[in-house]
């Protein structure tokens, strides 16, 4: 017999869909089927059932092979590594719950670590821009219920946030948007004609890396001022037309992604995108929202916000919190050899950092906490497998619009598996013992 768990939250992306249904065995030990999820989310749930899953910590040996160790040994190694390091990097924190993030923050404070999350390679530049100019935003329900102008800039939800368009942005029928997608004008700005662009009314195939220019041109066009014939590969007539489309809406929303945050210009691109939104508020109502990637990268920024006052790149090594992106950000620290140990939880820098940074992790004492086997676990000295947050343990997560949702446990983890929070609590206790406080 089986039972169905409803209102399940998907722990994949920042869309944080909370309407999944999961069929599990009566004893709650096996997960059979996942409904309503996108292909990626479904795979995430199903992968927890993999027969070849690693269920015990392991340590890399001299000869390069793995040796299974106990959780106690893993805790000891981690606590020693963190207390002995002068300036350890504690990175990741995006694929875990806020409860674990809070415990991790306390460890970071105790050992004087640099705390950084995946925003550092994702929307970190957006966070900098928000510190420059602010951010007029809204919840995704406001988009669903009111928005009639949808602009996707440098993001491709069809691939990265698969249910975003149907749940929130393009297709849903909301209170003031009873016509669904027919009542909305959709604009996509991307150097490629993406699958998202194919459902848009307008696609501006911008020259890669020219986002700042085009955003600036829109601001010029809002004011009806003169533009050069072509900006960023887009003819001016098209720019005026798009500007008019945005101004004539009742509620415009701009979603933006890695196309703007990771291209040259970085935070200045986002500054300009937010300025576009500010300007639009002179004519109509407008909001802007980063398409956050990991399902709880937003949450780690929130937790650190209320504990330290900064959303990422928080250097605690001097006993108080410092924040200086470009200096206290993971890739800069690694590349400049400024950290002497690396702890990774809830992320895979081995796959998603430039290789020159990955090599630095390999060169240092390092621990990776991850349910999966990943390129990060491959280069770390110790790998600690843990229960899947959002599948095998609940906890709070923040959606891309900062709405906190409690994820659900739907199935038991393999016998004897620790959760992130349990592991971290044990490490914290051991750190305190070692420090004698």
């Amino acid at each position, binding site marked *: 017999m089986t039972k169905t768990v409803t209102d399940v939250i998907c722990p994949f992306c920042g869309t944080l869909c909370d309407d999944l249904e999961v069929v599990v065995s009566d004893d709650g030990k096996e997960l059979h089927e996942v409904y309503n999820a996108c292909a990626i989310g479904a795979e995430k749930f199903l992968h927890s059932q993999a027969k070849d899953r690693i269920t015990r910590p392991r340590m890399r040996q001299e000869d390069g092979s793995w040796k299974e160790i106990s959780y106690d040994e893993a805790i000891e190694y981690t606590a020693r590594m963190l207390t002995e390091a002068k300036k350890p990097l504690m990175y990741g924190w995006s694929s875990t719950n806020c409860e674990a993030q809070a415990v991790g923050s306390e460890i970071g*404070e105790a050992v004087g670590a640099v705390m950084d999350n995946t925003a550092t390679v994702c929307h970190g530049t957006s966070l900098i821009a928000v*510190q420059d100019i602010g951010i007029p935003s*809204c919840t995704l329900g406001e988009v669903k219920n009111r928005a009639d102008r949808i602009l996707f800039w440098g993001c491709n939800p069809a691939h990265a946030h698969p249910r975003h368009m149907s749940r929130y942005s393009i297709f849903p029928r909301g209170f003031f948007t009873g016509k669904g997608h027919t009542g909305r004008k959709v604009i996509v700005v991307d150097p490629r004609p993406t699958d998202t662009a194919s459902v848009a009314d307008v696609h501006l195939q911008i020259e890669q890396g020219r986002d700042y220019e085009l955003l600036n041109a829109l601001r010029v066009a809002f004011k009806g001022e003169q533009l050069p014939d072509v900006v960023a590969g887009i003819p001016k007539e098209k720019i005026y037309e798009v500007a008019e489309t945005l101004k004539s809406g009742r509620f415009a929303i701009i979603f933006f992604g890695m196309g703007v945050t990771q291209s040259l210009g970085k935070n200045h691109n986002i500054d300009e995108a937010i300025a576009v939104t500010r300007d639009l508020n002179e004519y109509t109502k407008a909001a802007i929202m980063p398409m956050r990637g990991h399902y709880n990268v937003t949450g780690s*920024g929130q937790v650190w916000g209320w504990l330290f*006052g900064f959303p990422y790149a928080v250097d*605690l090594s001097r*006993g108080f919190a410092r924040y200086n992106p470009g200096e206290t950000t993971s890739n800069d620290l690694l590349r400049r050899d400024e950290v002497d140990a690396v702890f990774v939880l809830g992320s895979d820098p081995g796959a998603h950092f430039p290789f020159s940074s990955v090599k630095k992790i390999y060169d240092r004492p390092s621990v990776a906490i991850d349910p999966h086997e990943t390129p990060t676990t491959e280069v770390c000295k110790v790998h600690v497998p843990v229960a899947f947050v959002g599948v095998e343990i609940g906890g709070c997560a*923040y959606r891309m619009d900062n709405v*906190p949702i409690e994820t659900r446990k739907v199935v038991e983890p393999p016998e004897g598996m620790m959760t992130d929070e349990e592991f971290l609590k044990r490490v914290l206790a051991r750190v305190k013992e070692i420090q004698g406080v």
Partner: protein
Amino acid sequence: MAEYLIKNGFVFDPVLGIKGDKADVAIKDGKIVETTAVKSPQVIDASGKTVMAGGVDIHAHVAGPKVNVGRNFRPEDKLFGYKPKNGIERMQGGFSVPTTIRTGYNYARMGYTTVMEAAMPPLYARHTHEEMRDTPILDQGAYPVFGNNWFVLEYLKNHEIENTAAYIAWLLRATKGYAVKVVNPGGTEAWAWGLNCENVHDPVPYFDITPAQIIKGLIEANEYLGLPHSMHMHANNLGNPGNYTTTLDSFKLSEGIKPNSKFGRDQVMHHTHVQFHSYGGDSWANVESKAKEIMDYVNSHDNITIDMGQVTLDETTTMTADGPFEHHLTELNHLKWANADVELETGSGVVPYVYSPSIKVCAIQWCIGLELALLAKDPMRIFITTDHPNAGPFIRYPRVMKWLMSTEAREQQFDAFKHKDKVIEATNLAGLDRELDLYEIAQMTRAGPAKSLGLAHMYGGLAPGLEADVAVYDFNPNEPYAPDDIEKAFLNAEHLFKTGVQVIRDHNIASNGNKRTLWVNAKVNENPQVMRDVKEKFLRYYTVTLNNYEVTGHYLPNPYVIEVDATE
């Protein structure tokens, strides 16, 4: 639990009516007890010092989404003032928007033990509770906002008080909220279209209801339920020249409504940060104080309480669910602007602001706040706040006390204004020579707010049976003192007890206390219509499911539930 006896202090307690006489205060099992009830207490020698109940803050923005926006988007607010971890104290940062850790410690250092978060967007209730959980020492509660909520707008359009009340009860339970907060009623919903409601008769777009209907209806629903606190109001038209008429219009909506609450309060409306609502004139060039007109009304109507929203002349961070106001502000000062509209419920904005003594308007605002308190006939009905951090950070409360207690301190400030003469001309303050005493201060910071919150049975005084929240300040009211001595002493309590635990000893944090979260569980008759409406709205318009909405369990590790029965 340890017993304590605080001996020979000069006690100021409106509950017992002690006005600076020497008295002893005994603590046992977390409560204040008769001095005869303690057997072998630890004795605190308070001779030559001031003893008061723990402070109660009725209105501050200290936890939740917009507060954290303020923290995260203002790294500059952390410059220079970061405090390293030290013993049991974790690291603390931030000036106008401190981290939760600093919030707890700094309130404690001022002798405060209870702090209410003034605006909780229901959809973000979990976030608010997470921050309160991580705020040490303080007892806290949070007010969910109702004034732009679609359920409320739809029910009150037809004056359906019972349905409104049932919905309020449901939402208080779902969000673990404490009171009914109203911010710019109708105006924030209008702001979702970039519009506003500028007076109580300005209709809300689409919903076909006026702010006046919302205000009156929510007062009635609040009394229908008999909640501990009254409806907590932030009126339309905040911060605009000439807005005092809107404020008076809003006040008047409470006329004829009697409190129905077994919690001992006398008011049916608490109007917050009234300083921002007491402006005359019709432009920033001729803005002037209307504090007198406002206080004439308040003094003659017993069913209203207010708090000041005192401008402290600092660089600070404004944050409010009054979305259109923050947009207006960013247009004025051109500083960074964050906005967050919340589906079906509310909105908010955040903008940094510099209240400069060199700017005439800021100085006028400073005068207006103080005038409100100094014109108060009954200090049990007007409370010291800075609408933290909107008019200034809460750590300036002792400075506000100084200004209220000393004409000399006020004159010093007047002399520091660039446009002193114009400021004096536009205000009444220079003509007020009243100096509040510590008894009145205790009314405005302890007994008064506790009573208004419906928590006089727990907080605000030193009568046996109340929670053992007691502050000892190194301040001798019977010796000569300079104005600055007041600020210094009240910024740095010598001892503080919170529910019987000594959290400050010899000016140092000694314990992280036993923090509780207060919320109100109001029982109402089953209301199938409201439950059907709730289900439908979640199905069709919310982006979270109904089953994922309610805040439960570990978000409130130490809850204190106040039960209300409205089933009769």
